[in-house]
């Protein structure tokens, strides 16, 4: 967990994102995954019970194999199922809504105790205890049923697993950056991941992107740790990195394949040792971690390397009644937006039907491996070509507004899409990278120095993070910009990597380490001022949803550019306070985005906590 600071990061993320958590769907492909959770918990991969959809056509990603319907993202479901079993076990004893309130209250209690321990102030722990009691007692008085869903627990389990993954991501980010930059910078980075990046947005909805982001952060962290030695701990970390990639394949095989394509060569090139013991551990861990994917694929398609999302028809809605499906209950997917379909390995990709021809199993497997490699190569080349399209890059990275290529009629003409700098203004610091690199070259960087630097575990990790971020970004770039992305969700796993890169920049590291009070204070003032200003603007102007998002996006872009300017001029002003202020403002603006979208925009009386629901009911409504 990372000791007391790691616990603070974990619990603070749970408390904040737990308050924003809505028991609902933002996108209708989550309906499919929630139905998968329901069925897997009952012991089958086939989707024969669908409590969240009236028809099969409402579940994008549902595929039919021999008259039986299957879903996708089974790895995501496997993580949620144990939580569902616990929830089901308590169903006859405790009220679901009160159970959630109790869990959140305990997180508040734990946060108070951890902060008290961190600051060595027991009074903070007492405040946490009082807040815990108050929150639960108030929840008792105002508790309502989760009755907008006939069977809420599978979706609650999926939401809870996402929430826990987001908190894990923040904690891993803390540990990773602490390892590279020291505890202060790591602590700030961990908290920033939760509240100052779109991970905070997606942590409160049951989408797979938080899982992917968490997995890749874990891969990077264990890659980093494994560079530092050849003892048992380092080998275990190295094996762990591969194991996470293997498990990720059961969620999204192509994301895992791209991660493996970057991890394997860089790992072999930079590992302290490639002896038999280390490589054996890696092979065993990776082989075992692939079992969930292989077993699932074999059961569904009959091919170990053919996940459901590559089967023919995976993207197209199926006609109702195409296969037997229990429509015993209808959920209420409020405000559900249609998903754009899958970026990788979906219907428009030349997938093959299972059991290709008369090839032997081994030949079929090899054929599949070649196909995966070819597809990845094609996708990467397409990504490089897309990166030369400046108009596309502008709308993806800088400014969204009304993007001419986006099919807005699928989101009721609301401009809900945002660009990278708008929702991750902290990445504005990276705009100054060319200047920093130039200064570095002027200082006389020589090839020998660069080569020596690459022997450093931190530099090796930098290289891995850079390669992973560029690869994943290019893999998805041909699909972007796209509707139903909200915050470029396909490239959400890239965002923590960018945060790491920002934290590695010397001006940022220096500011976060030497001016933490300025950083935290500015963040708090920004949340209060921009948040207050936003609420007033909303009340006075009566903004529509698309206008709210664009107002917040523009705020983010302005602060990103301010951060870029502060970073670029760091050699001139030489003041950590200026950098800390710019960082705090950029982070605070994203926090306002996360809070505003979580409390005002994508809401429908569906917050998990009754107390939050009551507060939201008294805020100005989005027009």
């Amino acid at each position, binding site marked *: 967990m990372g000791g007391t600071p790691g616990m603070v990061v974990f619990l603070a993320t749970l408390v904040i994102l737990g308050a924003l958590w809505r028991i609902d769907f933002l996108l209708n492909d989550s309906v499919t995954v929630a139905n998968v959770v329901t069925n897997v918990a009952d012991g089958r991969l086939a989707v024969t019970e669908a409590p969240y959809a009236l028809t099969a056509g409402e579940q994008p990603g549902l595929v039919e194999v021999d008259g039986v319907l299957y879903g996708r993202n089974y790895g995501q479901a496997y993580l949620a199922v144990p939580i569902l079993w616990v929830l089901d076990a308590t*169903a*006859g*004893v*405790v*009220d*679901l*809504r*009160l*159970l959630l309130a*109790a869990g959140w*209250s*305990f997180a508040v*209690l734990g946060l108070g*105790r951890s902060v008290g*321990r961190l600051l*060595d102030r*027991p009074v903070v*722990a*007492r405040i946490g*205890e009082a807040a*815990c*009691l108050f929150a*639960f*007692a108030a929840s*008792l008085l105002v*508790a*309502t*049923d*989760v*009755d*907008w869903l006939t069977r809420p627990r599978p979706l609650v389990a999926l939401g809870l697993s996402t929430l826990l993954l987001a908190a894990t991501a923040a904690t891993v980010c803390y540990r990773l950056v602490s390892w590279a930059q020291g505890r202060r910078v790591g602590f700030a980075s961990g908290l920033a991941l939760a509240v100052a990046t779109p991970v905070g947005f997606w942590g409160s909805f049951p989408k797979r992107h938080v899982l992917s982001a968490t997995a890749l952060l874990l891969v990077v962290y264990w890659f980093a740790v494994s560079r530092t030695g050849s003892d048992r701990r380092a080998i275990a970390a190295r094996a762990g990195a591969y194991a996470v990639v293997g498990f990720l394949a059961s969620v999204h095989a192509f994301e895992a394949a791209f991660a493996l394509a970057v991890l394997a060569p860089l790992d072999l090139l930079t590992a302290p040792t490639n002896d038999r013991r280390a490589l054996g551990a890696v092979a065993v861990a990776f082989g075992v971690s692939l079992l969930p994917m292989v077993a699932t694929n074999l059961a569904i398609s009959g091919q170990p390397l053919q996940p459901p999302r590559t089967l023919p028809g995976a993207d197209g809605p199926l006609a109702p009644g195409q296969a037997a499906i229990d429509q015993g209950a209808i959920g209420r997917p409020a405000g559900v937006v249609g998903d754009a379909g899958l970026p990788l390995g979906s219907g428009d990709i030349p997938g093959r039907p299972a059991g290709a021809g008369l090839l032997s199993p081994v030949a079929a497997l090899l054929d599949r491996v070649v196909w995966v490699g070819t597809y990845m190569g094609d996708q990467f080349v397409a990504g490089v070509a897309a990166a030369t399209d400046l108009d596309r890059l502008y709308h993806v990275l800088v*400014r*969204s*507004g*009304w993007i001419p290529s*986006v*099919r*807005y*009629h*699928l989101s*009721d*003409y*609301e*401009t809900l899409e945002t660009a990278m700098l708008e929702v991750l203004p902290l990445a504005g610091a990276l705009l100054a990278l060319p200047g920093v690199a130039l200064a570095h070259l002027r200082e006389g960087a020589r090839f020998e120095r660069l080569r020596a630097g690459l022997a450093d575990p931190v530099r090796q990790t930098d290289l891995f993070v850079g390669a992973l971020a560029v690869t994943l970004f290019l893999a998805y770039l041909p699909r972007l910009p796209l509707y139903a992305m909200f915050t470029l969700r396909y490239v959400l796993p890239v965002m923590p990597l960018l945060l790491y890169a920002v934290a590695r920049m010397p001006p940022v590291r220096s500011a976060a380490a030497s001016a933490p009070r300025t950083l935290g204070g500015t963040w708090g003032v920004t949340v209060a001022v921009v948040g207050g200003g936003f609420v007033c603007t909303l009340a006075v*102007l*009566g*903004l*529509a*949803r*698309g*206008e709210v998002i*664009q*107002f917040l*996006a*523009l705020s983010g872009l302005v602060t990103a550019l301010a951060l870029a300017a502060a970073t670029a001029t760091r050699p001139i002003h030489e003041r950590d306070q200026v950098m800390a202020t710019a960082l705090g403002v950029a982070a605070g603006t994203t926090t306002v985005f996360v809070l505003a979208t979580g409390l005002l925009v994508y809401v429908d*009386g569906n917050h998990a906590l*009754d107390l939050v629901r009551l507060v939201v009911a008294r805020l100005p*409504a*989005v*027009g």
Partner: protein
Amino acid sequence: MAWRPGTGALVVATVFVALVLAGPAWGTPTGVGGGTATVSVVSPAALAGADAPGDDSLTLRTTPGRFGTEATYLRIPDLVVDVREQSGRPQLIADLSVDADGIDPPPVSRILHRSGTHRLAYPDAALPPRGYDHGGTAVEPGTYDGHLEVRVQSFDGDHVVVNRSVEVVVGR
């Protein structure tokens, strides 16, 4: 100072006991149920006299999107109502229909848990800018007939509060 974990354990135990004592069905339902309520419109003013024979026509207009949104918006004002003699869990529902393809705002509703003032927020309806050709239905500038109905519904009955024609002006 020595760390004292005792109070924390006490708090956890208290919450656990309360959780179990509350039982598995503590929460109150959120959906519509039986009941009734007397509702009068406070705002918008054109609807305030809806109970009496009124001839103030309600005109809704589109205005351009702001902050970089090129959609135009049909701004639909929030409905503020005064609720008296409330009982049970009746539902206030507003449904605006417009005689134009491409303008189809969904009905909005809220449960009336208590007497007093209630606000029913109607989301603004976005219309595509001219030249948008990816799909959907474009709405030509002009004046369209519309109809607004506000009702109080419950399992015990259905009462119409507002039943008025509305003029919808779509600008360029």
